[in-house]
């Protein structure tokens, strides 16, 4: 019997529906302590002092940590590529979002840990927060980071850019220019299992970390970087996740559990509350996208200008990665030969945004498809036909000059039309994904083609 192609049930389904799956929170270890974190009550403030001495003296408290306890406090996901780290594990000098962790304690139970937080003394100096990415360059905009309002590390530029073809000529030639603004908002990952971690110090100095991460090696690398430890001193145990959707690519609990476990030499668990999950966990990014398309009256899109502002929240995390992916896919499933794209990662005083299902592309799918339907409406054309006409075809190149070897835009559109009983005109019903020719190879699409020998024509 062939397994591939079979409708086999998932191996974990039975355990999930009978309550027998063991998640991280189901792991209980003798002597285990519980963690709570002191989080910023302000969107933006200077932190003049943090004093944990009274908290540490409370009966039942075994350890407290602040930024001073972290061997390498600042972390950035792109350090290996030369981008400076920008996010502290525990706030040092400044808090840039409400809910940002400043200190953490490990105690015999959650109630004691919570009581200890009240004994931590922090002096804040509140600052005016900033939330609207569109105002980032206004002269009176609060300055969140010393280097300015946007992420500055796209090579020599402070924005990701795409330049292809001759966009000015396309806009001159266009019969109409259709312009719109698209703003899909932030949403929560909303996993049923909140962020949970458990760090267990082993007798020979290793740490075993039970984690709900979506990426064990990735999170192990983050913990190792903060601790400045080699990987053989850490063992991640995981592989079972109660909902991730991208939010558990962030390493949320593991490093602080590790620090408290090292300091107390006790197993340390941190289980976020539902309120923490909503208020302090990362979200999908809100995006601001402005598109102007140069179109012909018969439905060709011959050029696109686009401005994207990606709301990173307070720190970069994966934002520059997501924006680059966004830029590579900013023409959607269509071939637009003349492009001018500028995308910015803009900082605001909200929780850092992060990966979420479709990262970087969910936004552009919304913007591009709304724009397509508007173009069809403005031109009084059939939205199915406008899609098929501009669809990616074999031999076309994408925004970043990737040769498309087997695009399925045409087959999926045709299949959807058939499924809902839409009768396409014969030239659209019989269209294929094959290389362009004839009426489907107008002058404006010649230069973007790759030649059949693999090079560009």
């Amino acid at each position: 019997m062939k397994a591939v192609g079979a409708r086999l049930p998932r191996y974990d389904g039975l355990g999930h529906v009978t309550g027998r799956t063991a998640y991280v929170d189901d792991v209980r270890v003798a002597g285990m302590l519980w963690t709570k974190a002191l989080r910023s009550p302000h969107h933006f403030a200077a932190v003049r002092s943090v004093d944990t001495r009274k908290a540490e003296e409370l009966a039942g408290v075994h350890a407290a940590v602040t930024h001073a306890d972290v061997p390498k406090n600042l972390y950035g996901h792109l350090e290996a590529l030369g981008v400076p780290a920008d996010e502290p594990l525990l706030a040092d000098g400044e808090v840039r979002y409400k809910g940002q962790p400043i200190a953490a304690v490990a105690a015999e139970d959650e109630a004691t840990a919570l009581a200890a937080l009240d004994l931590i003394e922090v002096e804040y100096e509140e600052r005016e927060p900033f939330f609207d990415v569109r105002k980032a360059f206004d002269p009176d905009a609060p300055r969140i980071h010393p280097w300015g309002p946007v992420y500055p590390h796209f090579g020599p530029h402070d924005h990701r850019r795409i330049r292809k073809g001759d966009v000015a000529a396309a806009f001159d030639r266009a019969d109409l220019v259709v312009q719109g603004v698209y703003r899909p908002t932030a949403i929560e990952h909303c996993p049923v299992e909140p962020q949970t971690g458990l760090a267990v110090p082993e007798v020979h100095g290793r740490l075993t970390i039970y984690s709900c991460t979506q990426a064990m090696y990735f999170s192990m690398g983050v913990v190792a970087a903060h601790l400045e430890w080699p990987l053989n001193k850490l063992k991640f145990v995981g592989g079972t996740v109660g909902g991730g959707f991208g939010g558990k690519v962030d390493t949320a609990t593991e490093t602080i559990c590790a620090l408290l476990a090292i300091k107390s030499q006790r197993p340390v668990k941190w289980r976020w509350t539902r309120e923490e999950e909503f208020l302090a966990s990362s979200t999908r990014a809100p995006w601001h996208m402005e598109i102007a398309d140069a179109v012909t009256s018969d439905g060709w899109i011959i050029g696109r200008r686009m401005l994207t502002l990606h709301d990173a929240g307070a720190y970069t995390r994966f934002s520059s990665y997501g924006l680059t992916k966004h830029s590579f896919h900013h023409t959607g499933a269509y071939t637009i030969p003349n492009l001018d794209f500028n995308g910015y990662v803009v900082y605001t005083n909200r929780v850092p945004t992060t990966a979420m299902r479709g990262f970087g592309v969910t936004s552009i799918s919304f913007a591009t498809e709304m724009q397509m339907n508007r173009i069809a409406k403005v031109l009084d054309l059939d939205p199915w036909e406008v899609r098929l006409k501009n669809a990616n075809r074999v031999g076309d190149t994408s925004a970043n000059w990737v040769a498309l070897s087997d695009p399925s835009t045409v087959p999926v559109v045709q299949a959807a039309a058939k499924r809902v009983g839409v009768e396409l005109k014969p030239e659209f019903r019989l269209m294929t994904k094959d290389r362009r020719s004839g009426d489907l190879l107008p002058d404006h699409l010649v230069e973007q083609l790759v030649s059949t020998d693999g090079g560009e024509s």
Partner: protein
Amino acid sequence: MAKHRGRGISTIEYPTGMNQNGDPSQAWVKLKPDGRVDVFAGTVDIGQGSRTVHTQIVADTLGVPYDWVTMDNTNTDSSPICTGSFASRGTFIGGNAVRFAAEKARERILDIASKELEVDASDLEIADGEVVAKGAPQKKIGIPDVAAAATWTYGELITGTGAAFKPYAAVDDDTGRVEIEPHSAISYAACVADVEVDDETGDVRVLRLVQVYDVGRAINPLLVEGQIEGGAMMGLGLGVLEAAYPYYPSVEHRGEQYGSYLAPSMQDLPEFDNVILENPSVDGPFGAKAIGEMANNAQPAAICSAIHDAVGVWITECPATPERVLRALDERAEPRRDGKRVVFDEDSSVRGVSSSGGRSNGAGFQLVDG
């Protein structure tokens, strides 16, 4: 005051694997002395079913029954690196890692079987847990006997390792151009949304979603349908329900529990019609492409376009809440026409909102019409 129906469509594409590549997944396969198979890989099953899919891939690559294969993805001591379960990379990149490892183990099985059967390894094939001589089906040996021979006769471990990796694709920061493909296979989908909009309450109901996905090859159609329908519910949440900041960019009224945050639930479930197209990739396991992430990308635009079809207003700020729909119905905004320009949504643009037009001190955003 009435309920109006409308239809909207969208078409999307989505790449497999991390953008710009550089994201390894590795795996290790070994046989127990009775021929049962252990797979070690670090790929986390986040509910998408990757462990089941990887087990299917190993079973068919080796030619053994599915229930002979056990996968251990529980820890970093026994599993080699997997970059992680994100970027729609599990089935394709993680799946290739276990496939490559199984192919190596398969070679070792054939080597041992070749000695036992005294038939050249190239003349052997494996099916249903047996190694059989091509053209001479009576000459065969079960994989349990091959594994036993390896263990007790030859003193060997039948094993194989696999590593799936595509090198980092650098980007030209001036043009965005790449010299090598910065992803693996691209998947495609189309979505048709039928909605009902109440012009008195602003309520939008998604009645039906017809969705077509080219997934290359459905390793497990049941799990593909799970992704299509589960993803669609997330897309529906994006389109009409969910907002971390209901009055974005303001942070006021942020929900802090399930009761004050509208995630989709069973009452929002539309009728589904799923179509799986299989246009195989050249380099994915058994021709597979990805579906994980793209499954929530097509619905918001299809739904918001359907709202326009129903009541004639464009909702371009998601989600299309009753408040937004009612405000749009009140305003009935028409685009500004200026020569050949047709300008929608001017009030929410950078130019419309920032005091500097987005260009303080000569620097700043490069506007689309500037």
